[in-house]
């Protein structure tokens, strides 16, 4: 019995600690807050309206997402300076998703239930969006997701202000086939976007007369591309379609150049390299390669001139804009316009009013498609210049209607 006595005896004090811990778990878990109502509903009382800004400010995704937060905060400031929305100032509540998907879900829940945010702007990776989706659907919240993605989704509680595949990938593949060559080598990081995108590209290649030279995936964070480049050399493709993510791009392009492959030998078209990423990779090794987007910092519109100027003024001359940054900026304006039209912050009212909302965005006019809550966007292809900027070589002329399920493309029939 001594053992038992010892076990219990050692820890008498714990009972007291338990009470303290319980209080901690309750209180610390949520910072100073007023005990809110059980049911979340956009809080429209007072002079301000709260919105959430939810991006990864730490962890591996912080590299990309911090700029989106900056753009969203800038748009909010501009709107506030202009008198706000429905006469109310927008009060942004910034949260860190920490590159961790359950954290995104947890923070989304917090923004909706505790802060009663009228809308949340956030996310980058598909995984973070997928994690937040059920939260927004269950709490009838509103998420504005500003990054190009793989399509095949249309949640009633999400507005997608980045491109879906038919506004970025599909036209770029057509352009490559017409201008650069028929033989494609697909490389991507091993996760959902590249795999899904490549599935669509393969179907499109088959339908439009291209050939598949190879398809390779590398784990996220992979940095040795020597073997993959050997494979590319063996297959001698004319085009490399690149859906690598983040850091891997740096390693890939550096090592591609070392292997003696230049833009003249094989064209690389990327869909995840914007102006900011170019700076991290180094312009010298990217010059002459291509990227497909809906916006470049060099896009020639009066709105863009102003946008770039104020972004640099707000965050420093050395900062650059880019497609996701612009889409994040647009998201805030589109939401504000929809609220004004609805005359209410209520999610259902805003959703009902959103269809057809237009915004003269830096990258050209964008319009919300009421059917799938994506936006009409102009597709663009740019060539990377020695100064780290893009020279636009092609655009779709007019905004392309979003088609997340590729329903209007016969070759895509078997895909979903």
């Amino acid at each position, binding site marked *: 019995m001594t053992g038992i006595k010892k076990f219990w005896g050692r820890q008498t004090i714990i009972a007291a600690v338990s009470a303290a811990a319980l209080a901690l778990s309750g209180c610390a878990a949520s910072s100073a807050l007023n005990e809110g109502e059980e049911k979340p509903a956009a809080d429209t009382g007072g002079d301000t309206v709260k919105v959430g800004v939810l991006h990864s400010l730490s962890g591996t995704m*912080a*590299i990309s997402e*911090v700029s989106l937060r900056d753009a969203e905060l800038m748009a909010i400031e501009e709107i506030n300076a202009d008198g706000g929305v429905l006469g109310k100032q927008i009060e942004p509540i910034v949260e860190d998703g920490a590159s961790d998907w359950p954290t995104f879900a947890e923070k989304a829940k917090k923004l909706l239930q505790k802060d009663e945010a009228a809308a949340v702007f956030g996310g980058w990776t598909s995984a973070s969006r997928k994690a937040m989706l059920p939260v927004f659907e269950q709490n009838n919240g509103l998420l504005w997701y500003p990054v190009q993605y793989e399509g095949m989704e249309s949640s009633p509680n999400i507005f997608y202000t980045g491109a879906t595949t038919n506004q970025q990938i599909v036209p770029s593949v057509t352009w490559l086939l017409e201008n650069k060559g028929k033989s494609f080598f697909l490389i991507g990081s091993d996760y959902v976007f590249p795999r899904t995108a490549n599935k669509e590209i393969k179907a499109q290649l088959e339908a439009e007369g291209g050939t598949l030279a190879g398809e390779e995936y590398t784990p996220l*964070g992979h940095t040795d591309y020597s073997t993959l480049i*050997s494979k590319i050399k063996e297959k001698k493709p004319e085009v490399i379609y690149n859906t690598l993510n983040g850091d891997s791009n740096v390693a890939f392009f550096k090592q591609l150049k070392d292997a003696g492959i230049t833009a003249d030998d094989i064209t690389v078209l990327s869909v995840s390299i914007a102006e900011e*990423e170019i700076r991290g*990779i*180094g312009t010298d090794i990217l010059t002459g390669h291509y990227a497909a987007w809906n916006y470049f910092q060099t896009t020639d519109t009066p709105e863009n001139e102003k946008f770039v100027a104020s972004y640099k003024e707000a965050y420093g001359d050395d900062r650059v804009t880019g497609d996701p940054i612009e889409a994040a900026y647009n998201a805030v304006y589109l939401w504000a316009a929809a609220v004004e039209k609805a005359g209410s912050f209520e999610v259902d009212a805003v959703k009902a009013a959103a269809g057809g909302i237009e915004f003269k965005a830096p990258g050209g006019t964008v319009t919300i498609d009421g059917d799938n809550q994506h936006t009409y966007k102009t597709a663009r292809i740019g060539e990377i210049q020695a100064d780290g900027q893009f020279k636009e070589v092609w655009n779709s002329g007019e905004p392309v209607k979003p088609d997340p399920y590729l329903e209007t493309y016969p070759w895509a029939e078997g895909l979903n």
Partner: protein
Amino acid sequence: MAVVFTQLFNGISLGSILLLIALGLAITFGLMNVINMAHGEFIMAGAYTTYVVQQAFSHYVPAALFDYYYIAAIPLSFLIGALLGFILEKTLIRFLYHRPLDSLLATWGVSLILQQAARSIFGAPNVAVTAPSWLDGGLTIAGAVFPYKRLFIIALAAVCMIALYLYLDKTAAGRKMRAVTLNRSMASSLGVSTKKVDAAAFAIGSGLAGIAGCALTILGPIGSTIGMYYIVDAFMIVILGGIGSLVGTVFGALSIGMLGTVAEFWTGASMAKVIVFAAIIAFLQFKPAGLLSARTRSLE
């Protein structure tokens, strides 16, 4: 045929990169038995040092001399890594020599702090380092291209290895280090200051991580998280090679490099990673002491 040569070369190249990464650990972990999870962040520190040196050269040094920034960056990366290691040893590690599992946890905390510090100083996005132009291009033999950068890294790894070997075997300071790591109490009773030797050994190991970081800048990204990509690999190499054996570390790095590239060539990069790590786990079941081991692993 060119493919075979290229792949063989790729294997050696990857092995040499892994060796550079693991060489510092071979000292701090292999000889000193300290689990330093912040080793990856010392690699990161070396990479950022290279970036800073490059920035300094582009601002203050005539353009004609710019290409030599890299020559200056290598010893500076070593010094920064060594300095960080020295501070870490003096403030934290020396209290934890008898608690290896705890040093693992504490240094993990250090690595979190260093990563965040890098983000605060250099910003969240990656920074770019332009490799010196004398490393551009490659040697073409029989249709296979051997990039100069990779040849350079192989050479650098070899030089570090040899320098380390000479230091440990041929200098008085190095022999003291060996003596302390082999038998602490005996060495100290012979008048060796174990405190000094510990600090020096840890600093050298960390400095080597700095050099690895400097080398990585010419091949890959420079950001706050690069340390995390390599840390597990580095530990696996040292364990696989055999604790306390530098030669074992070389074998470990080269065999992982070769296996990795061969597996990647036949399958894909993801499956190659799975195969390599599964192979390591399986191998250690049969030979828990690693390929070569200087000491029998004491049981208690």
